């Protein structure tokens, strides 16, 4: 489109509202046209980011019920009761597009936004997990983005004093033009302090506190988050919000004090859509209306147009419904914390979001000189926003979706018989995706709060709960490499892996939050991927008996290079009743027995091994049996609760050999093991079939462990003993016993690597991949 054409384009289209949507807006306004301010408000609220207009019909299919669920989807964060009068609030959210434009502020404000979702519920934030995905680590642009995003997450989280205790860093070519920055936050609250985002009663005051409103983040939801990127477009930079973690820290303390003292009827943070979103959503939830006096809103600069004030996404602001007699106390609390605070309107009973200039009188009626400049039904902006029934169709693939474990012919690209397993293991441990993330997480404060029992770097994070014997366990997992092959399976696998990572500590998973990162939903293939992902998520959560308590959908993750691989990012929080029973992944004692629980099955596609060795055209990803997954996790939790387990580690990226190497490195002791390689050592050592766990146990515990496994129908295989300073794995089976000629000259039928070599490869992999001096 030329500039001249763009200039004559009608306003609604320039704001991203389609002609059909304009018609639907007229319907909701009794047939009249919206004025420009109303149109701007609709454009933001009906953006994909705020309205979920493409994904809402799918999200309704997710299981959300659970006996301990206190607040579910639709609130700012999910809340689950954990006993002792306490509850945990948690949610994951994306800030992908802002981070692609301005990585530091994009990531920083992503942290700020998700933290506000947590303390808005009345919970004190106690942990952050950041799930980050980028393109080629060797690329200069990627390195710039990684550096900026990591500094942004740290810059914000460190300052507000919430520890960053876990997350992911994954490199995949599909994120080259469109990185993913998904941030999960967890908070702890007394259940009786639970606060909902509602407008309270007609007559209540609408109070805005926190930073003044400026021109930053205009159109963040509509311009940035809900359209496909053309390129690194500098014109979008003003749409990125700017974060101030110091203001957020004050906002946390002031908000929690207001809640603690019972001074607010409802609380809502200001994020996407700014004041428009906060007022219309709270009004709609309360079945009420809100009258906003535009002139009462504190501004950062003069001359702001009404639409700028109403849709600005200036950060670190909160909106509260306050009973009139509580206002002096509310003002005192905010002022003491150094936060500007103002009455910006009143709750009404007419169901409308009404904007006036000139101010309302005592009864909430506009004063004579005041001018009504917008009036729309609150629900038209929120629960009655448009919903699009998108078309889904599976992509036409070059080849039909393959079956897992199709027998491979001799291939030099997947050297089944020509490989040295020790060299492959070192290459995997040193790869950009499997090596130590220390370089990253050392830039985060992971211990502030003095609750971090297990921080980043060794599986799920563990936080003790002061004053109890309990602990919370949290993790995030996603799987883009299976995602591009089978989006249904990828979502189910991500749930399985995340919950398994929680279960192997001994904790019981409580619930699931999800961030669904997909492409342009108006493309039938991308919408099909989203639909398949939601189906996989729902099936896995049902099978594992877990509620989905909230999350976020990020669409239009596309760049000129194409769409990202479908990436359902799954966050799970679990509860460990007695922290004294906590199990970790590190081998504990020499002489302990090492066991593999679960069954190794065929299928290498989507694995880190294939990434290294090259695609096997005929192979598919390994299948997932959710019944087996549930049985395995329940067995592991029970075995840990009975004190039978010395260490427990999940088998995932890099397969069994990688899992064993991690147990050995982190426990600083080797092992002497035998692995049945069947007819494929690659599958046996490096395959990533799900529903498997490596346990170690004291010799005296092994019989009871095996009996329990048998009783619960979980296959158990003894692998060998912990000890020494080398990881030695002897391969057993047809794949390892060919003649030397057949195997090739470089072949070993055993893997035998020193702990020092494992650690060197693992430690140096990431700094080397990113070209960072250590």
């Amino acid at each position, binding site marked *: 489109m030329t500039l001249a054409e763009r200039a004559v384009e009608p306003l609604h289209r320039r704001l991203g509202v389609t002609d059909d949507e304009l018609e639907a807006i007229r319907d909701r306004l009794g047939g009249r046209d919206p004025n420009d301010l109303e149109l701007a408000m609709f454009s933001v609220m009906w953006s994909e980011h705020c309205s979920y207009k493409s994904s809402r019909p799918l999200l309704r299919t997710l299981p959300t019920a659970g006996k301990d669920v206190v607040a579910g989807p639709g609130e700012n964060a999910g809340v689950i009761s954990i006993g002792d009068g306490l509850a945990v609030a948690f949610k994951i959210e994306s800030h992908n597009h802002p981070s692609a434009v301005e990585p530091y502020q994009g990531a920083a404000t992503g942290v700020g936004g998700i933290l506000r979702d947590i303390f808005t519920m009345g919970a004190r934030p106690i942990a952050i997990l950041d799930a980050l995905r980028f393109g080629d680590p060797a690329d200069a642009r990627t390195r710039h983005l990684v550096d900026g995003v990591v500094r942004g997450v740290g810059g914000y989280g460190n*300052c507000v004093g919430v520890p960053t205790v876990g997350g992911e860093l994954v490199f995949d070519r599909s994120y080259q033009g469109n990185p993913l920055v998904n941030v999960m936050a967890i908070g702890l609250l007394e259940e009786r302090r639970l606060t909902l985002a509602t407008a309270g009663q007609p007559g209540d005051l609408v109070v805005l506190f926190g930073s003044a409103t400026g021109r930053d983040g205009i159109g963040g939801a509509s311009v940035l988050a809900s359209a496909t990127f053309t390129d690194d477009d500098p014109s979008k930079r003003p749409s990125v919000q700017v974060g101030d973690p110091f203001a957020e820290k004050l906002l946390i303390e002031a908000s929690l004090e207001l809640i603690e003292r019972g001074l607010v009827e409802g609380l809502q943070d200001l994020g996407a859509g700014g004041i428009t979103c906060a007022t219309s959503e709270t009004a709609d939830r309360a079945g009420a209306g809100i009258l906003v006096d535009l002139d009462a809103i504190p501004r950062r600069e003069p001359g702001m147009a009404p639409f700028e004030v109403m849709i600005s996404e200036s950060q670190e602001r909160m909106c509260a419904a306050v009973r009139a007699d509580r206002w002096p106390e509310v003002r005192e609390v905010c002022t003491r914390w150094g936060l500007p605070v103002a009455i910006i309107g009143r709750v009404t009973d007419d169901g409308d979001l009404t904007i006036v200039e000139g101010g309302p009188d005592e009864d909430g009626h506009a004063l004579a000189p005041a001018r009504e400049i917008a009036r729309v039904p609150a629900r038209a902006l929120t629960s009655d926003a448009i919903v699009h029934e998108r078309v889904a169709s599976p992509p036409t693939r070059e080849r039909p979706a393959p079956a897992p474990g199709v027998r491979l012919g001799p291939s030099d690209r997947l050297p089944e018989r020509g490989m040295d397993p020790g060299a492959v293991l070192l290459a995997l441990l040193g790869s950009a995706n499997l090596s130590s993330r220390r370089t990253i997480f050392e830039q985060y404060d992971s211990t502030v709060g003095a609750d971090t029992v297990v921080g980043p770097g060794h599986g799920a994070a563990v936080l003790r709960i002061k004053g109890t014997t309990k602990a919370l366990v949290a993790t995030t997992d996603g799987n883009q490499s299976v995602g591009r092959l089978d989006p249904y399976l990828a979502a189910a696998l991500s749930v399985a892996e995340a919950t398994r990572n929680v279960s192997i500590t001994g904790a019981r998973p409580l619930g699931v939050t999800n961030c669904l990162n997909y492409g342009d939903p108006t493309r039938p293939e991308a919408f099909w991927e989203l639909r398949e992902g939601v189906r996989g998520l729902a099936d896995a959560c049902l099978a594992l008996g877990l509620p989905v308590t909230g999350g976020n959908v990020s669409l239009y993750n596309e760049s000129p290079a194409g769409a990202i691989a479908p990436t359902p990012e799954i966050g799970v929080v679990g509860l460990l009743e007695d922290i004294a029973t906590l199990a970790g992944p590190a081998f504990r004692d020499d002489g302990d027995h090492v066991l593999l629980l679960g069954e190794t099955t065929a299928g290498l596609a989507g694995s880190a091994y294939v990434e290294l060795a090259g695609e096997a055209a005929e192979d598919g990803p390994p299948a997932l049996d959710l019944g087996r997954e549930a049985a395995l996790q329940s067995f592991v939790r029970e075995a840990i609760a009975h004190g039978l387990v010395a260490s427990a580690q999940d088998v995932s990226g890099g397969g069994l050999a990688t899992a064993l190497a991690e147990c050995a490195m982190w426990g600083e002791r080797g092992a002497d093991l035998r692995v049945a390689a069947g007819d494929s050592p690659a599958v046996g050592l490096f395959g990533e079939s799900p529903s498997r766990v490596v346990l170690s146990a004291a010799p005296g515990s092994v019989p009871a462990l095996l009996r329990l496994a048998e009783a619960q129908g979980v296959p158990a295989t003894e692998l060998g003993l912990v000890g020494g300073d080398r990881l030695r794995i002897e391969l057993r089976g047809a794949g390892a016993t060919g003649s030397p000629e057949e195997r090739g000259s470089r072949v070993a039928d055993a893997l035998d690597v020193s702990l020092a070599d494992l650690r060197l490869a693992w430690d140096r992999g990431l700094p080397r991949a990113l070209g960072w001096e250590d």
Partner: protein
Amino acid sequence: MAVRIGVVVFPGSNCDRDTVHALDRAGAEPIVLWHEEASLRGVAAVVLPGGFAYGDYLRAGVIARFSPVMRAIGAFAADGGLVLGICNGFQVLAEAGLVPGALLRNRSLRFLGRDVHIAATRLDTPFTHALAAAGAPLRMPVAHGEGCYFADDATLDALERDGEVLFRYVDEAGHRASEDDRAANPTGSLRAIAGVSNAAGNVAGLMPHPERAAEAILGSEAGAGIIRSLVESAARAARQPVAVAVGAR
């Protein structure tokens, strides 16, 4: 009766609750001192906790030193009152001139959050007397962007001569780290200094966080000895309010 110890809260302090928790566990009665208070309400010692006081805008600690509570702390310190600054609290004390030296940006120019080992140089101080041994490695986290200890050579010589270097970065075995040992002294602090006191010995600061390493469940109890030293010294000071802290040297 438990001894009262004040924990200062500036806007942006974020280790105040952790410090209160650790003092409480060590048997003290911690009370919160708001930055606008001009009185210390009769506390026997004061802790300036970590965080980002006033957002650490301009430079860590530089705004906090002008707050009303700091005037009171200055007078309290001049009277021999016990003051401990941890991390941002150390930065504030250095900016206020209550302890010598300055904290520059870390050598990496990045925030650094990880475990380090430090060792006390002497046990005859109010902040170290309950530790098991001088020179023994104490594992605890650092978490800061500006923790590289700096002073000119003459000052450093004087600090060492007068025993004002309280804590040094050491390796796992307890050997003093060199200035360029990136593993053991990752911030690049001069002469591996992790904590110092003033000349009178009643005001001290350190960059690592003993309050985050004072319980076995958190992976290290090594910081508990520093907290306990402070609480016991404060209890003694409370019984004999005239500068026992200095006398303890």
